[in-house]
C-alpha cells in the first residue's frame, strides 16, 4: 500500500511533450527519410517529368525545349516501326519467361534429389549469375559468330550451322537463350528453396496413400510452391522488359528490327536519334506495360495461388 501523493496531478504536470510514442514516431521518420527522399527525387519526380517531357520536344544541342501538345502521342500511334517493336518485345518476353521458368523448375527438381555432389552442380548452374553480364554476352556473341565456336562444333558433327545473329529467327532465339542461361540460376535457387520448404509429411502421406510420383508433383508440389512461382514470374516478366545490354551487345536490335525490344527502341530514339520527347513517350508506354502486367499478375495471384502463408 503505497502512499502516492496525488499521482494524477504529478503525472499531468510532468507529462512531457516527447512521449514514448512521439519519440518513436520521430525515429521512424528519421529511419525512413533517406530512402523516401531518394525515391521522391530519383524516381517519383522523374516519373512526373516523363509525362511532362512527352508533351515537349527537347533539342540538347540547340538547347530548346518546346511544347508540342499531344504530337508525340500521335507519332506513337502512327509510328510504322512500333508494331514490329512491340511484337519483338512480346515474343522476347513470352519466350524468355516460359523458357526461364520451366528450366528453373526442372533444374530445381533435379537439384532436390538425393545425389552425391549435388552442391557442385548447384554451384555450376548458378555460376553464370555472377559472371559479368556484358562479359557473358560477349562470349556468346563470340560463340555465335558465323565462324565461331558453336558452328565449329556443329561442323564437327557434319551440321552446317546458320549465321545465328544474322537471321531474324535465330537472332531472337539467341538473345532469349543467352539471357535465360545467364539468370535462370536465380529462379532455380528460389524454386529449390520452395521445394525444400514443402513438408516431408505430405509426401509420406501421399506415398502411404499410394499416389504416384507424377501426380504427387502436380497435386502437392506445384500447389505448395505456387506462391514462389507467382512471385518469380512477376520478377522475371518485369525483368524481361528491362533487358538492354544483351541486345545492345549481341544484335544491336537487328537484323532489321527483329530484336529491337521496347527498351532498346527507347534508347535509340532518345540517345541515338535525340528524339527525347518521343523517347519520353515510349517510356510512358513501357511504364504502362510494366504497371499493367504487375497489376494483372497481382489480380491473378488470388485465383492461381493455391495456398498462401
Amino acid at each position, binding site marked *: *500500500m503505497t502512499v502516492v*501523493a496525488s499521482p494524477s496531478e504529478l503525472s499531468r504536470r*510532468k507529462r512531457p511533450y516527447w512521449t514514448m510514442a512521439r519519440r518513436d514516431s520521430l525515429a521512424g521518420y528519421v529511419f525512413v527519410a533517406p530512402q523516401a527522399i531518394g525515391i521522391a527525387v530519383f524516381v517519383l519526380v522523374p516519373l512526373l517529368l516523363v509525362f511532362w517531357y512527352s508533351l515537349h520536344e527537347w533539342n540538347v544541342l540547340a538547347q530548346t525545349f518546346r511544347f508540342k501538345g499531344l504530337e508525340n502521342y500521335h507519332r506513337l500511334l502512327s509510328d510504322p516501326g512500333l508494331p514490329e517493336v512491340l511484337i519483338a518485345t512480346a515474343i522476347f518476353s513470352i519466350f524468355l519467361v516460359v523458357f526461364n521458368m520451366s528450366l528453373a523448375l526442372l533444374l530445381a527438381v533435379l537439384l532436390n534429389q538425393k545425389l552425391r555432389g549435388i552442391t557442385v552442380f548447384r554451384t555450376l548452374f548458378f555460376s553464370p549469375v555472377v559472371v559479368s553480364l556484358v562479359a557473358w554476352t560477349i562470349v556468346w556473341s563470340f560463340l555465335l559468330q558465323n565462324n565461331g565456336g558453336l558452328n565449329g562444333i556443329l561442323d564437327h558433327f557434319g551440321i552446317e550451322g546458320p549465321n545465328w545473329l544474322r537471321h531474324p529467327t535465330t537472332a531472337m532465339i539467341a538473345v532469349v537463350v543467352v539471357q535465360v542461361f545467364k539468370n535462370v540460376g536465380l529462379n532455380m535457387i528460389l524454386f529449390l528453396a520452395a521445394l525444400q520448404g514443402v513438408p516431408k509429411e505430405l509426401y509420406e502421406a501421399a506415398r502411404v496413400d499410394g499416389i504416384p510420383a507424377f501426380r504427387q508433383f502436380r497435386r502437392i508440389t506445384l500447389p505448395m510452391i505456387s506462391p514462389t512461382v507467382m512471385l518469380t514470374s512477376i520478377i522475371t516478366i518485369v525483368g524481361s522488359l528491362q533487358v538492354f545490354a544483351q541486345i545492345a551487345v549481341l544484335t544491336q536490335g537487328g537484323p532489321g528490327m527483329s530484336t529491337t525490344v521496347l527498351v532498346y527502341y527507347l534508347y535509340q530514339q532518345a540517345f541515338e536519334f535525340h528524339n527525347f520527347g518521343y523517347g519520353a513517350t515510349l517510356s510512358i508506354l513501357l511504364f504502362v506495360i510494366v504497371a499493367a502486367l504487375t497489376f494483372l499478375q497481382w489480380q491473378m495471384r488470388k485465383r492461381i495461388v493455391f495456398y498462401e502463408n
Partner: protein
Amino acid sequence: MAPVTFSNVKKSYGAVKVIHGVDIDIADGEFVVLVGPSGCGKSTLLRMLAGLETISDGEIAIGDLVVNDLEPKHRDIAMVFQNYALYPHMTVEENMGFSLLHRGASTAEIKERVDWAAGILGLAEYLGRRPGQLSGGQRQRVAMGRAIVRNPKVFLFDEPLSNLDAKLRVVMRGEIKALHQKLKTTTLYVTHDQVEAMTMADKIVVLNGGHIEQIGTPLDLYDNPVNQFVAAFIGSPSMNFIKGRVDGDHFVAGDARLPVPPGAAEGRDLVYGIRPEHFTLAADGGIEAEVVVVEPMGSETQVTMRIAGQNVFGTFRERVLALPGSRLTLNVDPADTHLFDAETGLRLPRDAV
C-alpha cells in the same frame, strides 16, 4: 525494491477496450501472480508496467514514482520473457551484462555482477556459450540472470515456464520461488496456469475479460472464491457445478439430494459447487452416483460420475475398483460446499448459507 500500484488502469486499442479499470496494490517484496485464461489482459497489464504498452488511462506507480510516461529503461524493472528473448548473437555473459553495459557500468562492475548472478543460478561454466548451445532450462536461467544482475526494483515474468516440459517446469518453479526468497524483490508474474499461481504466489490476482475477478492469497481463493469463474479457475481438477434448488437442508437436483449447510436460500435457481477432492466414499446412505470412467493415477483415483444426469468428477485417495455403469455412494461435508447464484454466478455469502 519497491511497492507497485495500479490505480484504475485502462487500456484500449482505438474503440476496443481491453482493460477496464484495474486496481492492484503490490507490497514491497511481495510475489504477485496475475492469472487468467488467454486474452484476459494479464500480459497487457504486465507490459504496461514494463513500459512496452502505453497506458490509456489511470496510473501505474513504482514506489512513489508514477511511471506512465517513463521509458522502460527509467522504470528500473527487469523482465523475463516467455521465449526468453536472449540475444542469439551474444554469449551468456554478454547477454547478462548487456543492460549494465548500456547503463555505463564499468567492466569490473559488470563482471562482478554477472559472476554473482551466474553463481546463484549455477551458470558459471556456461558464461562463454551462446544461447543456441544451451538447454531450455539453462536458457531460462540465463533469462533470469539477465533480470537479476541489475538488482531492479521489480521483476516481471511473462509466462516464463510455458516453453518448458512438465518436469522441468516443476523444477524451475521451485528455483524462481527460491530466488525470490533469497532476493526478496517485488515480483509480478503472469501465467495462465493456476498451479503455478497457487504454488508460487503470495497473492493471486484472477483476471477475466480485462477486469479483476478476485485478489487474495492462494488458499483464500481456493476456500472462498467470490464467484463461479474463480471457483472453476482455481483448483485442479476443476470444481463441479450442479444445477438445482435448495429444499430445506438439501440441495435438490433431479432425483439427487445433496447436503448443504442449514439456512440456505430456498426457492431460486442455484448452482451447487463441490471440489472433486471433497467427495468421500460412504458405506451407504449417501449420494448415489453412476460410474462413467475410472482413471487410476496410483496416488489417487479419478472417477467421472453422473449425478442427476450431470457429469461430475471425483478424486479419491482410495483405489476405486468400480466398473463403468456400477454405482458409488458418496458423502459430502456441507462445510466444503459452495452455492452460487445461477444468474450472476456470485457465491452466496457463508453467513447467508
